């Protein structure tokens, strides 16, 4: 009879359970490890470790892959967007006037739309890979990105339309029970990302006795800070998604 895993020193299985709990939660991890131990009684120790590794990868690959893809998306956006802005500014008329219908809205919404679009360049690919295309957060982020994207067009009427469409969509999301929670998850993730980046840059500026608003770190350091902040934002996004968007079951 093969050695039962109940006789294995619990200190050896604690790290495996801890690692599995990082990707699937503590209760699920304990139950899964118990199942594998029970099945391994009639198989082999090698089978147990092989099954454990496969289960760990199957349950945990989405998070890291989603983060890497989202980070690459931000990286591409950071390279393409300045080039696009410079191209547009070169071709703008010298007397370009902001002739928009709602002047105050235009002045306020431009930076807001830009910031929203930039956050969505991270959140959308992350949510798409992490939670799937049918997930409400993914769909919400996609619609919002479509609304805010015209802000980079530098055409007045498009920016007007984009501002109004975005405001109406956000208002509808606040009112609608279906979209209120995805909005909360998106807002929490975006605020976390922006706050983390600002805090890190501020701390770095203070450590080098530089003024925050004029501080410009080296490219590598700046990117490292951004990646760290976005990793934290990805963690918050997953946490909020689990708390707010996971459906409560009704037992038959």
């Amino acid at each position, binding site marked *: 009879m093969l050695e*039962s*895993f*109940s006789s*294995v020193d*619990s200190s050896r*299985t604690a790290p495996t359970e801890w690692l599995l709990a990082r990707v*699937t939660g503590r*209760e*699920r991890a*304990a*139950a*899964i*490890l*118990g*199942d*594998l*131990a*029970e*099945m391994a*009684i009639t198989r082999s120790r090698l089978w147990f470790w092989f*099954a454990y590794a*496969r*289960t*760990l*990868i*199957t*349950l945990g690959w989405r998070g890291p892959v989603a983060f890497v893809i989202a980070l690459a998306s931000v990286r591409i956006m950071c390279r393409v967007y300045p080039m696009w802005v410079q191209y547009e500014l070169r071709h703008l008329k010298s007397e370009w006037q902001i002739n928009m219908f709602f002047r105050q809205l235009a002045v306020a919404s431009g930076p807001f739309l830009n910031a929203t679009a930039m956050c969505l360049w991270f959140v959308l690919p992350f949510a798409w890979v992490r939670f799937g295309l049918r997930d409400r957060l993914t769909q919400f982020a996609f619609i919002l990105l479509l609304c805010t994207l015209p802000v980079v067009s530098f055409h007045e009427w498009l920016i007007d339309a984009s501002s109004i469409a975005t405001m109406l969509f956000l208002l509808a999301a606040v009112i609608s029970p279906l979209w209120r929670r995805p909005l909360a998850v998106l807002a929490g993730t975006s605020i976390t990302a922006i706050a983390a980046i600002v805090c890190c840059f501020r701390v770095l500026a203070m450590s080098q006795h530089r003024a925050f608003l004029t501080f410009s770190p080296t490219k590598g350091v700046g990117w490292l800070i951004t990646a760290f902040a976005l990793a934290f934002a990805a963690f918050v996004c997953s946490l909020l998604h689990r708390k707010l968007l*996971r*459906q*409560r*079951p*009704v*037992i*038959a």
Partner: protein
Amino acid sequence: MNPERSLGEFEQIVLLAVLRLGDEAYGVTILAEITAKTGRNPSPGALYTTLHRMEDKGLVTFRDGSPTPERGGRAKRFVIVTREGRNALASAQSAYQSLLQGLDLLDAQLFGGANA
């Protein structure tokens, strides 16, 4: 009211196995039941991914059993199909039955081959 859930093939197999096992449905028994009834040998990871996805969709829920020595003192986690899971399964099976009506799967003319 939640929109109807469409079920994948493996999700339906897992739900049916859970319903067949009743109160004894947990990871080990579900895998054994699927292997016995379908001849498939799904990996534990595939099963748990499906169960967790269905829990997130609200199709199943879990209740904890008692810890046992052969599980290293860990409790079993029994699976229960929710009302929404039953409805989704019934809807999927109804769709299959509707598509199968009028079709004779042993019909030689339809499938040709050595029986034609």
